[in-house]
């Protein structure tokens, strides 16, 4: 019987515009059985989509839009994680 499983695509963009450039990406594929190879670090040099908008056009649903950064006095120049992180999902059918 056909069942659905979730795929999660995480895209980091250059800025909060959903059409800005993808700078980092990761795919977590729930349709693959345990032990099967998932996307690894260093797998690809080119993102699967140029932007979140491009991924939406291909059927991905956005389930997280990052809040805009809050620059606190004294910490305006702090740098750490990638700030514009979008989480997208789509359901795929698997045979069991």
């Amino acid at each position: 019987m056909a069942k659905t499983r979730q795929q999660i695509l995480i895209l980091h963009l250059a800025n909060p515009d959903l059409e800005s450039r993808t700078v980092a990406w990761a795919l977590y594929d729930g349709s693959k059985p345990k032990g099967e190879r998932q996307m690894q670090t260093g797998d690809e040099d080119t993102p699967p989509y140029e932007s979140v908008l491009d991924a939406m056009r291909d059927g991905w649903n956005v389930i997280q839009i990052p809040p805009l950064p809050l620059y606190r006095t004294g910490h305006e120049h702090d740098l750490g994680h990638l700030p514009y992180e979008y989480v997208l999902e789509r359901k795929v059918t698997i045979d069991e």
Partner: protein
Amino acid sequence: MSNGSPREYLLTAKQMAEFAVNGFVILEEIVPRELNEAVHKEQQALGTPGYEYWFKSKLIREVFELPQVKGALQSFVGINPVYDHSFLHVVPAQYHKGQAYHADSIIDTRPYAFDIQAFYFSHDTPDEMGPTLVLPGSHLHSRVNTFSIARYKNILGQRRLASKAGTIAFMHHAIWHCAQPNYTDKTRYVFKIRLRPGQEQRGLFNTDGYDSPEVEAILRHGQHAWAGNEARLTQIAAAKFYRYLCGDDRVDFSFERALTRMGI
């Protein structure tokens, strides 16, 4: 390492500017072939000595006594560095899982001081053999805690340190990195040693031309695509870090001379 290295073995201002921008300096094939072969043979014989390798092996000590290697280390951490730890990292043949992105250790609260981590490749380590993957410039995005970046898989500008035998990559302790899958039938070895400074890290390299147009160009072009909207802040962080490295707090190679304008 109590005696200072001759100036000719110290890193140049251009190399240190690259270090400020990228977080690493690679010295290709600086270890002689005979020594690499002896070390590689020993690594194969010892298996997985991990933290003990440094204490068990005379050969690995020979590598780090080479004048070019001592000179590079002195340029980062001075003449009396403190041994932090070392490890012989091993990726087995046909091991297809990439390590998760991480920065070593916990968040470092020192504003500019840094530890240096030397990665020594005793054998040729081509792309398919799982050389270390690094993200140039990520040492400036240091407000991350070890594996808090493990969700990331691929980032624009990431670079695998494919190396010939005898190459040493000197890396800032905060750089984002990970081991890569090994698709060959040979075991991959990389020896890592971490040293912390025994003194302030100002002007430890060959500072000739530290404020030259060539150095300025390296810093001014030091924006990383992966940083997106933060790229200017990252560049300013590199310019600030370079002030610490060169020891002159007036030199300003920051975007729009922000350091001068804001009196930072």
